[in-house]
Each structure stands twice: as structure tokens, then as C-alpha cells.
């Protein structure tokens, strides 16, 4: 069965960068090859996507001042100033600025969810 394509941009997240950095270390000390590292990252793309969908059910809202926006190749990038995230349980999280990177929904596989 052909492996589906999953979005790779989640590799930039905390957990993704943690994995990338760890793999880089192992490549540097010769424990693994870059090819193997690639396979691990591809597996990460899949595991992350599957588990996010399966385990996470929380809803949030976000308000703020849109500072910049860009759409390129079906990827939206927003910079929001003074964002206010309302998490479940009426918890509010704010920051001076946040960047949002959003790819089009629906797996990069054939057909949408």
C-alpha cells in the first residue's frame, strides 16, 4: 500500500524540532544515516497527524489584530498582534505577537477528510 503524504511543516513545532535536533546529533556522531533520519521524520509526520486527530478534541478561539497576512501555495501565514487565545475552561493566554502557519486542510493525500 502506498504511503500517504503527510504535511511536513509540523516538524517546526517543539516536538518536531526536538526530533530533528536529536536526529541531527545522531547523524553527526555517525550513528545513523541521513536517509534513516528522513524515514524517521516521515514517520513523525504521520504519527503526529494521526495522533493529533485522534487524541485532541479541544476547541479554542483566537482574537487579535492582524498585522500581516500572506497566502502562497495554499499556505496561509498570519502575524497577529496582541493575540488572545481562549482555551477551554475559560483560560485566556496572551502574547505580544504570534505567527500562524496554516496549510490547507485535508491530507495531502488524494481526497479530503
Amino acid at each position: 500500500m502506498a504511503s500517504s503524504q503527510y504535511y511536513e511543516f509540523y516538524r517546526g513545532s517543539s516536538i518536531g524540532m526536538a526530533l530533528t535536533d536529536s536526529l541531527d546529533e545522531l547523524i553527526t556522531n555517525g550513528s545513523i544515516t541521513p536517509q534513516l533520519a528522513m524515514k524517521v521524520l516521515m514517520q513523525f509526520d504521520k504519527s503526529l497527524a494521526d495522533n493529533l486527530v485522534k487524541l485532541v478534541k479541544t476547541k479554542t478561539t483566537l482574537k487579535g489584530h492582524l498585522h500581516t497576512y500572506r497566502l502562497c501555495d495554499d499556505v496561509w501565514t498570519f502575524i497577529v498582534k496582541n493575540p488572545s487565545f481562549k482555551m477551554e475552561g475559560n483560560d485566556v493566554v496572551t502574547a505580544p505577537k504570534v505567527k500562524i502557519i496554516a496549510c490547507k486542510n485535508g491530507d495531502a493525500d488524494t481526497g479530503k477528510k
Partner: protein
Amino acid sequence: MSNKIVPSAYRAIIDDVMLNIRSEFEEFGVEEHVLAELQSKWEAKVVASGYPPNPPPPHPQHLHHPHQPQHPALAQPPPAPRIPQVDGPASSSDGGSSSRSPSPPPPSQSQPAPRPAADTEEIGSDLDDDDSDEDDDVDGAGNSGEGAQDIVFCTYDKVQRVKNKWKCVLKDGMIHINGRDYLFAKCGGEFEW
């Protein structure tokens, strides 16, 4: 206040990946201990980025610190002073005697010289976080090392705009903000441009 699902979600992701790459590692002839090494490095870095992979014991954390519950292991580097600055003018009132310098004293002579250089460097790096981002905006969002940048990775179902009012529906998101991680299945965004 915490997004309680995050540690267990991370745990599930890590376990899932480790399970599935086992056969790849074998194919490549890589030894078991490397697999374990990868996992421990990965977990250590995830913890360092502000969220532990293991579910935290059931503290009533949010009762104590509504804004910032304590995290056991943190790599929050204290802002290291970049300029080894010593009060130059103060010593002049004492007659400029360099003999009284209980605190680590760089010679006051050489102070002015490196200072301009250090200044420009420091200015550059200080502004790096905030202002240069404003210029570059979408492009210049470098990683300031420890994921100090507040960022959201997600997908979008819908983005629409009426005049300067934007509304969007986001899905499956990972938020990193104020040094902590949150996850959402769905997020409704409303912005004014």
C-alpha cells in the same frame, strides 16, 4: 492552567514513532541502543522546550498559579548580561581609584573600546526578537533557539475576509506560546487588519 492533553499526546506520538521506525532501524542495520538513544534525546529536548512527555502527577496546579504553573524541568536561560558593564562614572566620585573594585572588574580603560562593538551586537540581537520581525514579518521569523517564538502550526478549513474583518476556521493545531505548548482540534479566529 494547562492544556492537559499535551503530555499524553506527546507521549503517544513519541511511542508511535518509535514503534514504527523500529523495523526501519533494523533494515538499516542500526543497533537497538541507537533507537533508545534517539528516544531519550528526543524526550529530553521536548522537556527542555517546556513540556514534559509524561503526564504530570495530578497537581492542582491551576489553583496555585493561574498564569504560570510550575514546571519541573525547564531550560529557561536567564537573560545573560551581554555587556560586562561596570559603573564607570561611580568610581570617578571616589577619585577614580581602580583599586576598589570588589565586583568582577574589567579594567575601566578598555571598557569604552569594546563597548560600541558590543553595543551594536547587542542592539542587533535585542531587536532581533521584536523589531526586525516587524520588517521581515512573514519571512524573518527566525528561530531564536529555544522556540522562544510564539507560533501556531495548523491547517485551515476556511479563511474569509469582509473589509478588514477576517475570520478563519483552523484545525489540528500546535500552539507554542509563552514557552508552553497547547493543542487544539479546532480554533476559530477573528482578526482585524
